[in-house]
C-alpha cells in the first residue's frame, strides 16, 4: 500500500502538479491550537544550535525559537525543533513542515524574493573573517599582502577572498581544500598563513586547536552574512509576530530590561518601558498575543544581549565580541524600531 502511495506521489511529481501547503488558517492560530512552535534548526552549529549533554538544544537560534514560544504560549519549552540540512531547509519551510526557519541562514535578495520567504530580523551579523598566527605580528587584514590563504573550495568564501584582495591591490595565494576539516588541519599544520571562513566559525574552530591562544582573529570582516529568521510568504500576521519578537528583545536590551530586573521594571515610569512591557497600550494584541508578551520573553529567555552573551559571547567558551551585533547606541548595527 505504501509503495502504491509512493508511486502515486512520483506520478504527481512527473505531471508537475505540486500542491502548495497554503491553507486559510494562519500560522499563529495553528500554533495556538497545537500548543507548540515548530522551528527549523541546523544539525549542530556551535553557539547557534547544538545539543547539550542532556540532549537539550542550546544556542542563539534556539533561544529565538523559545522566545517566540514564550510570547505566544507562555512556555519557552513548547517548541519542537526540526533539524534540517542546508538543502532541506527551504523546502521544509515552503511545505509548512516548520513554522519558522531559524538556522544561520543568510538573508539574500534571491532567497527573499524567488524562494517565497520573508526574513524577519537579523539575529546575528556574521561575515567572512581571517585567522592568523599571533607570531606573524599582524594587526589588520590590510597587512596580508603576499600571504597564502587556506580556504574551502567552491564556496562563496573563495569569491569574497578574491574580491577583497583585488579591491585592496594585494597579492595572495590560495590553498583550497574540499572540506572545512581539511582546511583547518592544513592551516594548523602551517601550510598557509591565513585561514578564512565566517567569523563565528573562526571562533569555534580555533577552540579545536592544540594551542588556541597562538592564533588571533583579525578585526576586518570582508563580506556581509546577515543571519536571519525567515517565514513563508503570505502570512503577514505571523511575519509581524516573528519580526517583533526580535525587535522586542532588542528594545528590552536598549531600555535595560533584563531577566533579573523585569519584575521591578514593570513598576517603571518610563513610558517606553511601560509600552514595551504592556503596562500601557495594547501592543501585544496587535500581533495576536496578550499584552505582557515582552515580559514573558524577557523572563524566560532574556533580552538580546543576554542571549548573545550566554550562547556565543563572554559567557560561553566561544568568547565572541559583540562587534557589529552591539546595539546601535553602542556602535553596532542592532537597531529596533520603537514600540509605540
Amino acid at each position: 500500500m505504501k509503495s502504491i502511495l509512493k508511486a502515486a506521489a512520483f506520478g504527481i511529481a512527473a505531471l508537475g502538479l505540486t500542491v502548495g501547503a497554503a491553507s486559510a488558517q494562519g500560522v499563529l492560530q495553528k500554533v495556538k491550537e497545537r500548543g507548540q512552535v515548530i522551528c527549523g534548526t541546523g544539525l549542530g552549529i556551535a553557539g547557534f544550535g547544538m545539543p547539550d549533554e542532556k540532549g537539550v538544544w542550546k544556542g542563539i537560534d534556539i533561544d529565538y525559537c523559545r522566545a517566540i514560544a514564550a510570547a505566544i504560549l507562555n512556555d519557552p519549552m513548547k517548541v519542537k525543533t526540526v533539524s534540517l540540512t542546508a538543502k532541506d531547509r527551504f523546502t521544509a519551510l515552503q511545505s509548512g513542515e516548520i513554522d519558522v526557519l531559524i538556522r544561520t541562514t543568510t538573508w539574500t535578495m534571491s532567497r527573499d524574493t524567488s524562494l517565497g520567504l520573508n526574513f524577519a530580523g537579523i539575529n546575528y551579523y556574521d561575515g567572512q573573517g581571517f585567522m592568523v598566527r599571533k607570531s606573524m605580528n599582524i594587526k589588520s587584514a590590510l597587512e596580508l599582502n603576499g600571504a597564502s590563504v587556506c580556504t574551502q573550495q567552491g564556496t562563496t568564501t573563495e569569491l569574497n577572498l578574491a574580491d577583497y584582495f583585488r579591491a585592496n591591490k594585494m597579492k595572495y595565494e590560495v590553498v583550497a581544500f574540499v572540506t572545512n576539516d581539511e582546511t583547518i588541519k592544513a592551516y594548523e599544520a602551517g601550510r598557509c598563513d591565513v585561514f578564512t571562513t565566517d567569523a563565528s566559525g573562526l571562533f569555534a574552530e580555533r577552540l579545536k586547536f592544540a594551542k588556541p591562544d597562538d592564533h588571533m582573529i583579525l578585526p576586518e570582516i570582508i563580506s556581509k552574512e546577515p543571519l536571519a529568521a525567515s517565514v513563508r510568504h503570505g502570512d503577514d500576521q505571523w511575519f509581524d509576530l516573528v519580526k517583533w519578537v526580535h525587535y522586542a528583545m532588542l528594545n528590552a536590551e536598549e531600555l535595560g530590561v533584563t531577566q533579573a530586573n523585569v519584575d521591578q521594571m514593570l513598576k517603571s515610569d518610563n513610558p517606553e518601558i511601560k509600552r514595551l512591557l504592556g503596562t500601557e497600550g495594547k501592543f501585544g494584541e496587535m500581533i495576536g498575543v496578550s499584552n505582557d508578551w515582552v515580559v514573558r520573553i524577557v523572563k524566560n529567555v532574556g533580552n538580546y544581549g543576554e542571549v548573545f552573551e550566554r550562547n556565543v559571547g563572554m559567557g560561553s567558551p566561544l568568547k565572541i565580541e559583540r562587534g557589529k551585533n552591539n546595539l546601535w547606541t553602542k556602535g553596532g548595527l542592532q537597531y529596533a524600531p520603537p514600540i509605540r
Partner: protein
Amino acid sequence: MTIGDNLTPMNSSGAYLGSGDLPERKPPVLSRGAVAWVRENLFSSIPNTIMTLLGFWILWEITPPVLNFLIFDAVWEGSGRDACLESVRNAPVGACWAFVKVRLGYFFYGQYPIDERWRVDTVWLMGTLGVVWLLWPRVPYKNWGSLYFFLIFPIVAFFLLVGTPTFNLQKVPTNLWGGVLVTLVLSTVGIVFSLPLGVLLALGRRSKLPLVRLFSVIFIEFVRGVPLITVLFMANVMLPLFLPDGWRPDSLIRVLVGIALFAAAYMAEIVRGGLQAIGRGQYEGAQSLGLGYWQMMVLIILPQALKIVIPNIVNTFIGLFKDTTLVSIVGIFDFLKTIEASFVDPRWATPVTRATGYAFAAIFYFIFCWGMSQYSQWMERKLATGHKR
C-alpha cells in the same frame, strides 16, 4: 625373508596377492610444537618470510600508537575541554573518553526526555529477550517466541516509545528520538520487514501471473536503480510537497518505509538466487505429493533456498545496519550523527575530540556487525546438512 616368499599364485592368469603383513616402517617425520609451526607457516619460503617480517613490522609500528591513544594516554575523567588539552595537562593526551562519558546518554537516547528513558531501556530489554529466544536454538517454544517478537513486542515497543495517554505515558514525538535508539529502530524494522517482503517479491518475480511478475520486476528494478540517498531525499523533501497537510507521515516513518522497501528489493534478488539453485526435482517432488503452491514453497523450497543464501542475507543485514547512518542527511539523528553533532560543542572542543568520537563509533559498529557475522557463520555450520560445497 624376501617379499617373494609370501606370494602365492592365486589363479591361472598368474597374478599374485600378498598373504602376509609388510614389515613395519618408521613413521614420517612430523614436527610439532611452536617452533615447527612458525617455520612451516611463517617462514616456509623467502617470499613468505618477507611478508611475515613486513606484517610484524606494520603491527609493531601501528599497535603501540593505537593502544597509547585508546588506553594508556586516554583521559577517562573530566568535566570540560581543559581535561583533554595537552597544554593544560602537560602530558600527551590520547582519546578523550571523558567527553564520550559525559555525552553517553545523548549518544544512546538522543533528546529523549531523561525521565522517560526507562521506557527505551525496557524496549531494549524486551528486544534482547526476543532476539535471544528466536536466535538461540536451545531455547524452547519457538512458536511463542515468534508470536512474542513479531506481534507482542512491536506493539508494546511502539506504545512504550511513542507514549500513550491510556497508560499515562507521556507522548514523545520522534523528533526527540536519537542515537543508538534510532539506529536500532531503523535497522530492526528494516531487517524484520525486508526479509518477508523480499521473499514475496522474489516469488512474485518468478510467478506465472503476469501482473504480479510485472509489478515485482518494476519495483525491484526501480528501487535498485536509485541510490538510497535519493530515496531518503524523496521521502523527506519531495513527499511533503505532494501530500496534503493532514496526512503527512512523521519523518522517521517516511525514512523507515524508504529503508525497508530499499532493503526488500535487494533481498528479493538474493532470495531469487537461492530459488534458482533449487533443482527442478524438488518442485516436482513436492507437486507429486499433492502440495499446493504455498505449501510447496513454505515446506520444501524456501527452507532450502534460504539456507543457501544465508551469507548473502546477513551481508545485506550488515550493509543495512551501516546504511542507517545515511539518515543523518535528512536531519534524523542516528548514533553517528549524535556523535558528530557533539563535536561542535565548544565546551569539549579539543584536538582529540573528533578522533575520540569516531573511535567510539567504530567500536560500536564493529561489535554489532561482527556479532551478526559470527552468528551467521555459526548458523551456517549448524544447518550444513550435506550441502557444504
